[in-house]
Structure formats: C-alpha cells, structure tokens
C-alpha cells in the first residue's frame, strides 16, 4: 500500500500541472499579502481564491488523473492486492500530493505575513477542502466509465457547491421568510463544505461583527470552540462519506 502511495505521489509531483498549481497559489498569496498593508484584508481576498480555485483544480485534476491511470489500476487489480488498498492508496497519493501543493502555495505566505488564528483556520480549511474535493472527484470518476462524462460531472459538482447550492439557500430563505430560519441555516450550511469553510474563516475575521449583527446564532455556534470542533468534524465527514461510497462502488466495479 505504501509503495503504491509513493508511486502515485512521485508520478503526480513529476506532473507539471501540480507544480504550476503550486506556483499559482504561491504567486496569488504573496501578491495579495503585498497588495495591502492590512493583512486581514489580504486574508479575506485569499479566502475568496481558496474557496473558488482550490476545489476547482482539485476536483478536475483528480478526475482526470483517475481516468488516466485506469490502465495502471487494471494492472494493480491483476496483482494479489486488495481492491480496497488499491483505491485507498490512489486516494491517499492524490490527496497528499495536492495538499502538499496547497500547503507550500498558501502556507508559506501565511506563515510569513499573517500568523493569526484566522490564517491558521484558512490553512486548515483549505487542506480539508483539498482532500474533500479529491474524494468527491473519485466518486464522480468511479461512477462513470466515459472520461468526458466524468469530467463533466466533476465540473457540475464544483458548480453546485460553489454557486448553485447558495442559490438554493437564497431560494429557501425567501420562500420561508416568515419562519425563524437561523438555526436551520446552521444545519444547511453544513451540507456544503465550501459554505461551512467560508463561515468558519469569516467568523475569525473582523467582518464577523457584520454576521453577528444579523443573526447572533451564527456567531454563537460557529464562533465558539465547540462550534469550530463540530465544523471540523463535519468537514472530516465530508471526506469520509464520498470516499466510502466510491470505495463500495469500486469494490464491485467490473473493470
């Protein structure tokens, strides 16, 4: 298992795309922190980038990688190896490689310019989002045999988490305007890792007062230590659930 992970990591790191991704993140994060003296502002812009770019790159890259290594997977399956180990190693390899890229790309700038709780949450959330979207990509890839269709599903999923979900939330908010929705919103936000991450970071920044202003419940829940721990547990669940579903499918899949 370790050997396969190592092979996958080396294979990905040799891939120029991941290096380009690292450099892109590095350039963006240094650029944003240098743009403004106020590091909290830089962090805010960085958050927007992390919440858009990281899921997009992770989900598309992972999907393509899984399709491209289908022959390699077939080769491994013919060996006396458990399918579970093969799939987990593939996931582990991609996740570790992309996390490393994110950690180098964003982490360095964060450690240099703004070593604050908010920045650390941003870093942690970014790493979790990387892993979550790798898991989701694996799920999308394992359910479709056709590469183009698989990539299409991945892009759609990204669009859903970044945009469509928020649109639905807005729709619900206005349809059920007459009901107290604050508590429900806390639950709903945990249905989308991107939203959950955004709220977690925002509540560590100055602008949290704006959120507390309208619904103290966000702050009372997400702002406290238990709230943060629960949110991180939910994010971990977001890794586990797609991974478990994709593994179940892969175990029975006729390659």
């Amino acid at each position, binding site marked *: 298992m370790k050997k396969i992970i190592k092979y996958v990591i080396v294979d990905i790191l040799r891939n120029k795309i991941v290096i380009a991704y690292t450099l892109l993140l590095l350039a963006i994060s240094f650029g944003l922190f240098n743009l403004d003296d106020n590091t909290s502002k830089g962090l805010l812009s960085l958050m927007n980038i992390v919440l858009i770019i990281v899921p997009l790159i992770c989900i598309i890259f992972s999907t393509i990688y899984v399709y491209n290594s289908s022959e390699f997977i077939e080769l491994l399956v013919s060996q006396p190896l458990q399918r579970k180990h093969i799939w987990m190693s593939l996931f582990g390899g991609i996740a570790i490689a992309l996390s490393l890229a994110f950690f180098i790309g964003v982490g360095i700038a964060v450690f240099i310019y703004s070593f604050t709780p908010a920045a650390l949450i941003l870093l942690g959330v970014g790493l979790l989002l990387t892993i979550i979207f790798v898991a989701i990509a694996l799920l999308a890839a394992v359910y479709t045999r056709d590469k183009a269709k698989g990539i299409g599903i991945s892009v759609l999923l990204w669009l859903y988490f970044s*945009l469509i979900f928020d649109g639905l939330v807005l729709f619900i908010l206005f349809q059920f305007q007459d009901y107290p929705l604050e508590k429900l919103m806390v639950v709903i936000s945990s249905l989308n890792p991107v939203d959950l991450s955004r709220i977690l970071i925002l509540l560590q920044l100055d602008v949290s007062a704006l959120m507390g202003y*309208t619904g103290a419940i966000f702050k009372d829940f997400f702002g406290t230590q238990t709230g943060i721990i629960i949110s991180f547990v939910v994010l971990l669940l977001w890794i586990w659930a797609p991974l478990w579903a994709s593994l179940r499918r892969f175990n029975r899949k006729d390659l």
Partner: protein
Amino acid sequence: MKKFIVIIISFLLLSPKVFARIYTVQKNSALSSIQQAINIATNGDTIMVMPGVYAEKNIQVNKSLVLIGKSFPVLDGQHSYEIISIKADNVILEGFKLIHSGISSLIDIAGIKIYARKNVVIKNNILDDTFFGIYLQKAVNCLIENNKLKGVATTDQQSGNGIHCWQCDSLRIIGNTIAGHRDGIYFEFVTNSAIWRNVSHANMRYGLHFMFSHENTYIGNIFKNNNAGVSVMFSHGVKMFNNIFEDNWGDGCYGIFLKEITDSYISGNKFLRNTTGIFMEGATRVLVEKNEFSKNGWAVKIDASCLDDTIRINNFLGNSFDVATNGTLVSSFSYNYWDKYEGYDLNKNNIGDVPYHPVSLFSMIVAENPSAMILFRSIMATMLDKIEKILPGITPENLVDNFPYMKPIHL
C-alpha cells in the same frame, strides 16, 4: 468731611463683602476639614485645599465659594458617600481628585452633584472610581471643563454615567475625558448647550446618549471604542460638527444611531471602523454633508421611516456596504464620492456621467432577510451584486446619486 466719614464707615461695614477672605485647609492644622472651612466662610470667599487625603463623607457647598485644590488633594468617598454636593450659585471647583464615591441602585450617587443652581464652574478635576461622575440636575449656565473621569463599570446596573445632565440649560461641556462609565455623556431635557472637544471612550454603553435635548451643538468630540457607539433620540435642532466616531465595532454597534431626530445638521464628522456608521430611524429633514465614512461595515443605514433627509458631499471609502435600506426611501443622495463607483467622466467636470446606485442587491437581501447574511462574501452574493450593477432592477430606483464625484472630495 461728614460725607467722607459716612463713606469710610459704610466701606468698613461692607468690607467682608469687598475683601473676600482666603481660608487654607491643611491636614494637621487648625483648619483641617473642608466642610469646617465652608461653614465659617461667607459668600465670595476662597478656600484653598492643600495636598492630602480628605475623607469627609459628604461635603455640602451651600455658599457661593471658590474651592481650589493645590496639587490635587484627594477627596475620598469611601465607597459610600456622594463626595461634593453643590447647593449654591456661582461656585467654582477646581483641582481636586475625587475617588471612591458610593454605589447605589436606588439613588444616583455622584462624585460631584449640582442641585438646581446657576453659574457653577467645575474644572480641572480628576474623578476616579465614581458611580456617576458629574451630575447636573436642573443646572443653568454651568461650565464643566477639562475634567478626567474614570469609572470602573462592570455591568449596566452597577454603573452610572460620566457626565449626567437632567433638565439643564445653557451648559458648556468642554475638553473632558470620560472612560469606563455606563454612558460617557448623558443628556435628558437639556437645551441650548455646547459640547466641545470631549473624549468619550471605552464606556459600557454609549459614548454619548441624549434624549429630548433640543438645540444642542456637538463640536470636535471623539467617541471611540464604546460598547454601543453613540445614540441620540427624540430631539430636534441637533448640530454635530467635526466629531470623530471611531472603532465602535461589534454586534449591534453604531457610530451614531439617530432615532426620531428632526431638523438637524451633521457635518464634517469622521466615521471610522464602525459596524454601522450612521443608522437613521425616523429621522426627518436631517442634512448629512461633508462627512467621511471609512472602513465601516455599513456606512449608512436608512430605515423606511425616514423622510426628506439629504446626504451630500460625503466620502465613502472602503465600507463593506455603502447604504442599506428596507424600503423605497424618499431621501436624496447627491455629489458624494463612492469608492465603488465604476462610471466614467467624458466631459471632465469631475462628476461621473452615469448615476451611482449605492445600495447593493445583497445588502437589500440582507435588510429584508437577515439570515441571508450566511451568504456574505460568497460567489453567489458577489455575482448578484455585479448583475444588479449592470442591469438594475430590484434595488430602489430613486435611491441614486445622480452626480457622483470621480475623486475623493477634499473635505
């Protein structure tokens, strides 16, 4: 000759009035208590108090005297008494340090209290750990100048106001520093007064709080870091010039909260880093001009109950939301500078050719449905704002600045 003698005699008879005496109060001397000195003095005399600690329970100033402290003699209220009660006109109180007044939830115990008197001057005193600081009750034409007040408020109930004025007229409150009280400066039924160059910071509730106080002028004060900012209600003829409202940041915090304010003028003020710069509720005929709104959450919030307000020639810089409203309002915006303005100026007259709509769609959504704040800074919210900017449809049509400045206005 006879006339001369009569003059001399009458002169001698009047002499106590003419040659006011000076009493010196000093520890370990014949005259060691301030109250004792007041009792033997007559109107117009001066009492000098030498350095030392005087724990005299309650000092009753019931004659028109001048009380001067040398190098801040300490008057200790021992956590149980009102330290100085002024019950005479024309009293001057200068240079004392008052500490540890009593605390009570039944009566308003103050460091210095004026009971329905005129022409009292209180200046250059230090008040430390007083329940109410300086309390003016039905006072007229008094001067409160250069005092430093520091409370140790912990809860709303267990704290009093810094400078508390009730049913007063023609006051001048100048250059005081107030911290750690419930409200820094509190007015109720106070008229025709000037509040100038005070600093009110880190108070439990409001930096400045007034109700039913008409025709007062506030100039060059600094209200900073108070728990709920500044709140002014039910008054008309309020003039506010060149004040600074700063760092009133937190849930339900305002730079200034105007409730039922009419015919007022707010000019030259700076609103920096407040959750809400100005929140107007039921404000009518208020002119807001030449102010700077910088780095606030909401620069201006206008409730639908406002009427005929004018907001012109202001700078809006780096606010999360410029204007929010919950209705289609009938107030006018013109000649402001908005840093979010993206129009052009073809005829180079420094005024943008395209009108600016300061209300963003997302701020409308939040005003109508506060829970939508959960989408704050999401891609969805940003996109909605952009689309609305290009094709305005939902945001109030008449909330528009037809003459937006291209560059920040030099105020």
